[in-house]
């Protein structure tokens, strides 16, 4: 038993690759959906936090604090195993998407808020002085400037969400990790696990690099 035939067994890898790829697509679908919904949810929360009436602001702060404090895995298990007692029964995919979106929204809300608060007060005042409504002020003036600031941290958060999709294997969702552990059991060989790890890297390494590029570009324009 040498290392190559144990961990990098090409025969095993080829045999189980379709299984892994099937899991990979599910991982990408789950990650992508949760990221997009989290970006939208976070923006709504950030607006509520910054411009909502007192009670709304309070509720948003509670939400954001709670969902940044709770471990993703704990919340996922609650959504999948505890909600059915209330009559809410979600599929593994829906449970995972719900849990990831709710937690991602809390993080992106804080990122948007920081981005909006980084825009100088004079920009708000200039917009108000020409009579812009809050909506127009946000759409035409504040958000286009804030986006540049928040793209790197939002990308970072998206990477985290994509990685957290692996937790969905706990609620029996056949994502990349689940498929890999299954293949490993069937083949009695750990090569599929290594294959899965490599697929995660192929998916996420470019995004990690992208954040570095964004940050460099932002730093340059800030110095201009």
């Amino acid at each position: 038993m040498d290392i190559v035939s144990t961990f990098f067994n090409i025969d095993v890898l080829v045999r189980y690759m379709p299984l892994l790829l099937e899991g990979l697509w599910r991982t990408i679908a789950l990650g992508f959906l949760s990221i997009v919904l989290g970006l939208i949810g976070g923006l709504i929360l950030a607006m509520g936090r910054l411009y909502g009436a007192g009670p709304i602001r309070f509720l948003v702060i509670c939400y954001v604090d709670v969902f940044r404090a709770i471990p993703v895995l704990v919340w996922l298990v609650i959504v999948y195993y505890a909600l059915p007692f209330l009559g809410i029964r979600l599929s593994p995919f829906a449970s995972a998407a719900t849990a990831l979106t709710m937690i991602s929204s809390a993080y992106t809300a804080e990122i948007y808020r920081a981005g909006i608060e980084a825009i100088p007060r004079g920009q708000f005042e200039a917009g108000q002085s020409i009579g812009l409504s809050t909506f127009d002020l946000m759409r035409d003036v504040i958000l286009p400037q804030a986006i540049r600031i928040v793209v790197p941290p939002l990308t970072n958060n998206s990477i985290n969400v994509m990685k957290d999709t692996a937790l969905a294997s706990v609620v029996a969702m056949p994502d990349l990790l689940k498929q890999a552990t299954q293949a490993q059991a069937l083949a009695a060989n750990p090569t599929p696990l290594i294959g899965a790890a490599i697929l995660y890297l192929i998916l996420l390494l470019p995004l990690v690099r992208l954040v570095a590029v964004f940050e460099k570009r932002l730093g340059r324009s800030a110095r201009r």
Partner: protein
Amino acid sequence: MAKTGESDPIIKMRGVTKRFGKFEALKSIDLEVAAGEVVVLLGPSGSGKSTLIRCINLLETYEDGDITVDGIRVEEGRALRQVREEVGMVFQAFNLFPNLTVLDNVALGPVRVRKMSWDAARKRARTLLERVGIGEQADKYPIQLSGGQQQRVGIARALAMEPHILLFDEPTSALDPEMVGEVLDVIRGLVDGGTTMLLVTHEMGFARKIADRIVFMEAGEIKEIADPDTFFTNPSSERARAFLDAVLNH
């Protein structure tokens, strides 16, 4: 809204008091400005001049008293946008929108607030930019312009809303000395256009030339209101005399 008559002041401030915590930035200010009048506010820094004009479009809230613009009470609520449509403002730090071209900086207000089409608004914006002498900069971004040019865009942006009242909050204080003149020239060109103007400035010679009235402030109070010749040659208050000595004799 009732149409205001000739004699009816376009801006009325009564007992306006503004506090920052315990500090009173404005102490029961009474001031009336007639339509078409040019009023220059002078006084040492921290005397409340900027705070006063910023209350007129409610960029600064006030705790007591009231302000009406064209008969509309200036307060949070539906009428506030109506006030802001009528009151243009030029800022010390320009506050241009860096994400928009110079042309769109000027066109944005008419498009969003007056519901004009982008085409029509941009056409008008070009005319306004030519009027302030920077027509050829229209397609650049604010960051590519000099300070003096940026401030002229700021003026064009305010003019685009066709305001009845223009507020200038130290419009030349952030400029390099060689650019002050070009901006003052543009402001001078607006006098006699019938627009009511309130101007906070430290340019004494300019103030004397364009003002119909000088309002002198200190420590949050109006200490003296006079026509410019009287104010600069024979101010009635001791405070104003001391201020003029300090700024003119150096």
